[in-house]
């Protein structure tokens, strides 16, 4: 077998070593190509991972909906009417739209122009946003609670318990460092609440949220602030396999109908949909991956073409040598095989060096960006990509090697020998 013959390789090494400058320049061409390919697709993957990291605690196909003021007169109401979402809307939506997996009504004191709650503990005090929540919220946006604590549970709602989950900043500002806040009491707008958990702050993609936020049971909130069945906004998660954009449309349609809003009124119900935003981001990183593939492969092709080019010149240079070989009994297929193998070998060597170099650079960039606040994590290149690149290189190396090999074949030994 030609490929596993020591002599074959000796022949190839011989002719490669014969012209070092040629070999090195050729190798650099492909090396650069594969390096670009690896570096780009690794970076794209890193960004992809980075984004995924940022959004990992949020259900991707979730949305928020809230009420605003009408902008179209309808059913005898004039324009500019303020709409208020109510608790009963929750059951209505759930029953009308089967695609909804979870729905969490939320309400807050603070944030949207209102005054935040004023919180007192002993001689320490501060103002923090106070949210009224249901436990189901944790299913839509993961609520990380520090050990020993818990989030609001169903019992809290049913009994309207005066318990709260506080943010990490709240803990820092109201408690001593060594103090365990669980079980302690704080005063929220003059009412004592027992702390049951401390929430780890995380960017949740919802756009608002703060490390000082305090969460109390929805039922307690409405008693405390006398908000009745009012709901600030709804957080909704659709099932994984449904398009959240369609759910968003349906939710708005249902809400418009129950609140007697003109169907064409675009302003009365506001909404925001993470799926769409996330789709844009994944679309962006998909695009980046695609771009890096295209650019990388194009660069590899350019490099391999360079190899073909240089081999073509070298075949011309070696016309006489090839003629001698054929006069001595090298069959056309042996000569062709040798030139193709030279091409493939040069391509592979450069490819492997390029992959190693690319891996080092990716590692370096990863280490350098470790402490920076940019979405970039664990830039890896899937093995399939690398194997694919190697396969492309072997195939292209063979194809491109065919050109000089064919050229070598077209030179008759007699003409080759005559050439001085």
């Amino acid at each position, binding site marked *: 077998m030609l490929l596993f013959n*020591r*002599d074959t390789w000796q*022949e190839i090494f*011989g*002719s490669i*070593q*014969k012209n070092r400058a040629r070999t090195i320049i050729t190798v650099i061409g492909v090396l650069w190509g594969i390096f670009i390919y690896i570096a780009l697709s690794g970076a794209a993957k890193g960004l992809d991972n980075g984004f995924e990291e940022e959004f990992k605690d949020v259900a991707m196909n979730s949305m928020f909906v809230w009420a605003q003021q009408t902008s179209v007169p309808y059913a005898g109401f004039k324009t500019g009417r303020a709409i208020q979402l109510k608790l009963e809307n929750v059951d209505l939506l759930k029953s009308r739209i089967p695609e909804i997996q979870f729905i969490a009504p939320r309400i807050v004191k603070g944030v949207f122009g209102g005054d935040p709650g004023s919180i007192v503990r002993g001689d320490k005090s501060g103002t923090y946003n106070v949210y009224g929540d249901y436990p189901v919220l944790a299913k839509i946006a993961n609520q990380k609670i520090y050990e020993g604590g818990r989030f609001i549970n169903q019992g809290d709602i049913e009994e309207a318990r005066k318990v709260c989950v506080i943010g990490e900043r709240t803990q820092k500002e109201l408690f001593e460092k060594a103090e365990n806040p669980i079980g302690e009491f704080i005063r929220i707008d003059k009412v004592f609440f027992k702390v049951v958990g401390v929430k780890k702050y995380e960017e949740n993609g919802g756009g608002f949220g703060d490390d000082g936020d305090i969460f109390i049971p929805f039922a307690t909130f409405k008693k405390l602030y006398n908000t009745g069945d009012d709901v600030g906004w709804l957080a909704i998660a659709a099932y994984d396999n449904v398009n959240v954009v369609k759910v968003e449309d349906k939710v708005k349609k249902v809400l418009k109908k129950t609140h007697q809003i003109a169907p064409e009124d675009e302003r009365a119900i506001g909404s925001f949909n993470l799926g769409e935003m996330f789709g844009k981001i994944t679309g962006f990183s998909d695009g980046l991956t695609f771009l890096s593939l295209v650019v990388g492969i194009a660069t590899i092709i350019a490099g391999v073409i360079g190899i073909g080019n240089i081999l073509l010149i070298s075949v011309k240079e070696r016309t*006489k*040598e090839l*003629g*001698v*070989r*054929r*006069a*001595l*009994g*090298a*069959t*056309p*297929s*042996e000569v062709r095989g040798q030139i193709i193998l030279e091409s493939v070998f040069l391509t592979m060597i450069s490819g492997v060096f390029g992959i190693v170099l690319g891996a080092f650079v990716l590692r370096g960039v990863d280490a350098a960006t470790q402490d920076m606040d940019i979405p970039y994590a664990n830039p890896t290149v899937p093995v399939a990509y690398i194997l694919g690149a190697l396969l492309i290189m072997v195939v292209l190396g063979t194809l491109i090697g065919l050109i000089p090999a064919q050229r070598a*074949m077209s030179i*008759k*030994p*007699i003409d080759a*020998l005559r050439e*001085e």
Partner: protein
Amino acid sequence: MIKIKGLHKSYRIGKNSLHVLKGINFNVEEGEMVAIMGSSGSGKSTLLNIIGMLDVADEGEYTLDNIEIKDLDETKAAKYRNRFLGFIFQSFNLINYKTALENVELPLYYQKVPRKERQEKATQYLAKVGLTDWIKHLPSELSGGQKQRVAIARAMAAEPKVLLADEPTGALDSTTSNEVMQLIQEINDEGKTILVVTHENDIANMCKRIVQLKDGVIIEDKIVEQVRALAHV
């Protein structure tokens, strides 16, 4: 050993056809040493190329060691060349990045002779041409005469039936020429059939038979008294 009957060869140059060989009839027995002479354009190189299977005749029969040589494709020609023929060229045609040893090994490599055996054989043939001390040298480190001796060793290494030499001394001075011819004569003495293409009378006279070519036909074919190269030194 070689039987040639009614050999014709034309080259097309543009619209004109150049009739180079116009019916060659020519036999060579085993152990002969034949000089093929003629001025340039007489067709002597073409004849040698056809005998060497580097070129194909348009018409005529060619038998080498009772094997009819016809319908040659490149692969078949390469195999025949490898097994039956040894070439010695005017410009040596050594591969410049290979050592003397590697050059001599090359035909054996294409014969698929195992590596070790190949090296032994090549070393042996290099010793025969008196280059034992030079086996690791590159052609660029050898003199013209030494290069031609490497080429002769290479031609011999494959143990061919016929040795074809195309102006083997064309690039050498007279002293070196004599040395090379002496070597070729010695090889012939051992019974190898040798064809030498030359335009020098001196060299032709060192063979045992001279075939004169002119305008594509043989005009003279005579047995001569061989002049030993040794006498000239």
